[in-house]
């Protein structure tokens, strides 16, 4: 394993550039050789060949053989470690039933009793865990030193260490759903993904991998990362900047602030691919499908979509209109 000379970020096999600072990875020095004109020859028939853009490789004009050349390595990544499930199927189902029963006044009264559970699928969704160090310069408005305006500009610099930043890479879950799950994972419980765990693509068929209900033993689908490595790193950097915006807040003078801007000089970043457990529940209420999610390690973290009783909503709106009309009448009568 080698590191970038400029920012000391760990480089991976196939990296031509550093993911953080874009420093190119030098090739192994070549011994000097005598200079003469050469032609590239087909390995099959020996004819002279040239690079063909359509094939993205040298191709022989006589026998159409294509020569293999080094390709840019930008693979779809797979998780190397996963967090085990700590919530089994029965507990997850009970948690959803409890959640449906507590949907509030706007939910249909018969929701808990009439909702039909269609599937309850264990899913280990894809995420990156990132560690990095950074020099962070910031600028912001705060109430400290304010004169006529309520705000005054400030700027500063701070060194931050980022540990265990989890960045969603899931296609199966929405980003907002991932953000609600992330704070409750016990990252220290990560175990290595065994060959038998991986390889199931939830985009194809997550429901086929039933049986991930043994506590601490995820047999559910392990989601593939849905992004090339190069694109993923931009997302990771954006996540670190978002974290930095929050982490610099104690450095900003004053009690209130706005327009917090950060610029990060990241160094020594390491990235680990994780699979995080969750139960995905599909249920149907009076012909319409809804989805709920149960945290794979915390039974009390349940959220999702649920139906609203339109009659209750209409009654509330009508009541508000009537009250507003009465108030208006009272004002006019004065």
């Amino acid at each position, binding site marked *: 394993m080698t590191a970038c000379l*400029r*920012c000391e970020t760990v480089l991976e096999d196939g990296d*031509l*550039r550093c993911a*953080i*600072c*874009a*420093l*190119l990875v*030098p*090739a192994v020095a070549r011994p*000097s*050789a005598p*200079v*003469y*004109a*050469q*032609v*590239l020859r087909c390995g099959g028939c020996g004819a*002279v*060949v*040239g*690079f*063909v*853009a*359509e094939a*993205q*490789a*040298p191709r022989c004009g006589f026998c159409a053989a294509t*020569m293999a*050349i*080094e*390709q*840019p390595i*930008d693979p779809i990544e797979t998780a190397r470690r996963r967090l085990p499930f700590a919530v089994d199927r029965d507990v997850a189902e009970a948690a959803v039933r409890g959640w449906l029963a507590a949907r509030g006044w706007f939910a249909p009264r018969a929701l808990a009793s009439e909702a039909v559970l269609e599937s309850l699928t264990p899913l280990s969704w894809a995420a990156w865990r990132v560690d990095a160090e950074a*020099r962070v*310069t910031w*600028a*912001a*408005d705060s109430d400290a030193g304010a*004169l*006529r*305006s*309520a*705000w*005054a*500009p*400030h*700027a*500063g*610099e701070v060194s931050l260490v980022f540990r265990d930043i989890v960045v969603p890479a899931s296609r199966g879950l929405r980003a907002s759903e991932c953000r609600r799950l992330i704070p409750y994972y016990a990252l220290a419980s990560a175990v290595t993904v065994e060959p038998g765990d991986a390889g199931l693509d939830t985009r194809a068929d997550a429901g086929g991998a039933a049986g991930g209900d043994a506590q601490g033993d995820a047999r559910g689908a392990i989601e593939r990362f849905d992004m*090339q490595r*190069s694109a993923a790193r931009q997302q990771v950097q954006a996540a670190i900047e978002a974290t930095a915006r929050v982490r610099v807040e104690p450095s900003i003078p004053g009690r209130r602030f*706005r*327009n*917090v*801007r950060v*610029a*990060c*000089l990241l160094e020594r970043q390491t990235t680990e691919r994780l699979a995080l457990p969750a139960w995905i529940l599909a249920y149907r209420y009076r012909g319409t499908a809804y989805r709920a999610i149960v945290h794979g390690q915390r039974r009390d973290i349940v959220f999702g979509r649920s139906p609203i009783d339109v009659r209750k909503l209409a009654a509330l709106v009508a009541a508000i209109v009537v009250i507003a009309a009465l108030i208006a009448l009272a004002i006019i009568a004065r």
Partner: protein
Amino acid sequence: MPDPGANATLCTATFACGQCGAGLGFVGVRTETCPYCVSPNFVERPASAHRPRPGFVIAFTGDASVARGQLDAWLGSRSWFADARIRRARVEALRGIYVPAYLYSAVADTDYTASIGEHYTQTETRETKDPAGVARTETRSVTRTEYRALAGHHVGYVTDVLVSASAGLAHAEFHAVEPYDLRALRRYTPALVTGWITEEFSRDPDDCRQISRGGAIDEVGQRLRRFMPGDSHSDLVWRTAVRWESLEPILVPVWVLAVRYRDDRSALRVVINGQTGAITGQVPLTAWKVALAVALAAVVVAAIVLAIVRHGGPPG
């Protein structure tokens, strides 16, 4: 168009064709096609300070027919002001060239000062008279801006600054067909460029470094404008120190062609990005169309002015 400011150093060498043995002159290029046996030859020269060995290549993504299609679409989409004959122009000398360039990156440390505008609201009271001449007191809220000085520091990596190292392709022309998708970079091997014209590096690396550095500082300026707090800002001044600079020689694909649309005029030069298809070229405008548009605009303005004057001007 060749850049007169370029420090061109054409390297000339003669080698025997690797297929038939005929003499081949490699003038400013590291690939050449034998005129007798049509074999694509290449030479691997030892690197030197002014003629580095490219470390990386972005390959062409289409052949000449793709470039022709992109050109036809571009010519067809020119504005009404363009010379109509451009749409029936004939293409001369379409050539796919691997153009030498430098890929620059650095760490940028910047000190800045700026005047930050912070809005605040004031309540104003003033005496007015209504149409009947009765005095009234009006109160209104007015938003004003208070300017405060801010000095600070900004850090970041500046990456992906590309600058042409070709004496034949000026940086402005090269810049017009950027960007390239650098995720498609491959490590240089002759197998990637054989059969295509591969130009040697013909600009001084120090000049290219200076141009790249200027591009990096411009990039920092754009970031700083987004970095400023407040409701507005002015008088932004910054001084950037770059360190850990990297200037990597690479090859990028470009189609260069001449489009002849009139026999009495010189051919129009067009440059196409060999990866993305972005095109640049100075399409000539038709003088009478421009004059007609100006005349029409003048007539419309005159009619509006006349209408205002006829109706006695604005009220009051």
